[in-house]
């Protein structure tokens, strides 16, 4: 998806990092098992986080597995579980929509690639949507509403972010306990908001160059593809409030076997990603991260 929701690796315990990798690799294997090889390319950090956040099974079992990207090294992968299956289904649903969105804008080669991938994953999407009908409906409704806002060049940052935030919040509807469901819904709403705003801030210069829609273009007055210091402060203070709401919801979610990793992502990872995006180093640092960690 976007990849902003990731831990600060240096602050993880080694055991935590191994478990995190176990979930990531487990999700990738689950995707292959349920939706075929191609769907593996949709694996991402965001749904790894969601699989951990909504894991309500006890201590998870792992087993050593090989995969095409590490043919000579066996990795301890999380075994299939309810939350992992749900995460895999949702990865395919949202991944497909993101590809479908990519066919609508961007440059021609990228559009062509998205179109091909979209067609190749059409069947997988159909199966995933049948397994998660509520989430698929929420994805369709909110992403269509978002496209409409983009076409209208919606000047409200909150209104645009709201659609993506609602989409993420719909994931919480599967949580059984009411208090936990409310907390998860609030957490995911603000996570969606933060992801959307980060993505907008990250793409701002590019969107100005190509004259694409970006809510920050209309909410603020960017100069040379950048927000003024004053505007950036207003924007980041608003994000801080969202992050506070996210944290306040997180501590109400109750116990979780992945608490150490989740806390790292929430308390350190999100602020670090935000810092990198606003410093303009996100794309480079993300690339370095990918190379070094090579999960």
């Amino acid at each position, binding site marked *: 998806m976007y990849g902003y929701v990731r831990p600060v690796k240096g602050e993880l315990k080694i055991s935590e990092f191994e478990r995190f990798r176990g979930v990531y690799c487990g999700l990738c294997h689950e995707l292959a098992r349920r939706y075929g090889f191609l769907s593996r390319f949709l694996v991402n950090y965001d749904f790894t986080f969601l699989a951990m956040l909504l894991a309500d099974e006890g201590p998870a079992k792992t087993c050593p597995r090989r995969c095409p990207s590490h043919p000579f090294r066996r990795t301890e992968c999380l075994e299939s579980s309810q939350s992992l299956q749900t995460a895999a289904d949702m990865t395919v649903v949202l991944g497909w929509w993101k590809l479908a969105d990519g066919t609508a804008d961007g440059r021609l080669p990228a559009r062509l690639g998205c179109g091909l991938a979209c067609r190749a994953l059409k069947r997988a999407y159909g199966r995933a949507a049948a397994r998660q009908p509520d989430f698929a409906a929420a994805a369709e409704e909110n992403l269509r509403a978002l496209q409409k806002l983009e076409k209208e060049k919606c000047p409200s940052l909150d209104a645009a972010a709201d659609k993506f935030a609602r989409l993420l919040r719909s994931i919480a509807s599967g949580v059984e306990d009411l208090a936990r469901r409310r907390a998860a819904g*609030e957490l995911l709403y603000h996570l969606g908001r933060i992801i959307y705003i980060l993505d907008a801030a990250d793409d701002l210069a590019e969107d100005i160059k190509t004259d694409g829609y970006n809510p920050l273009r209309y909410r603020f007055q960017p100069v040379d593809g950048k927000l003024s210091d004053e505007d950036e402060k*207003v924007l980041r203070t*608003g994000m801080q409030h969202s992050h506070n709401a996210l944290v306040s919801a997180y*501590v109400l979610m109750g116990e979780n076997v992945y608490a150490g990793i989740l*806390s790292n992502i929430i308390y*350190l990872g999100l602020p670090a990603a*935000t810092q990198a995006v606003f410093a303009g180093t996100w794309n480079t640092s993300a690339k370095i991260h990918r190379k070094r960690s090579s999960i």
Partner: protein
Amino acid sequence: MNDPYSVLGVSPSASDDEVKRAYRDLARKYHPDNYHDNPLADLASEKMKEINEAYDAITKSREQGGGSSYSYGGSAYQTAGQSRGAGKNAQYIQIRNLINANNLAQAEAMLNAIGSHDAEWYYLMGSVYWRRGWMDQAGQYYRTAATMDPSNVEYRNAVQYMNQGGQAYRPTGGMGASMMGGDAACNMCQNLICADCCCEMCGGNLIPCIGCR
């Protein structure tokens, strides 16, 4: 009631200090100040009550006394608008009650039905957006309210809270990064100095003093 020790997440053999520390960390987590105008405030205050009761039960059963003076008052918390100066007209009071009951759709509908927009209108609209999680819009409405009526303390407080970034729980031990940035290095120094002070109390030292070597 649940076992008070499991509520605080300590074993029954924990020392008084350990119990107190666990209690304080939990109280910091669910403190009403972290749930300022938050739709989950009721869940947090329930949690707070549970923790207070557990702590009181433990201190009472240990017959140490004095412990209950530490308990944070969860019930003393009131949501914004309820206690502070209510608006002039009855409609605004009704809207405030709707907002406090989290009935945002109806509050917004009533606000939209009002033709003339004074400072109170902007403030209440800001509150609706705030509760909905639309922080950017909320800030704009709060600022308009405070500009229209600079003498109103409630509006001013809302703008100040908005600008200062609010607050939420952060675990101790360097896990307190902020989304606003800028002062990350400064925080790190503060944490280090703090950690050093703590260590020195326990006989250790993180920042060795040159003269002491």
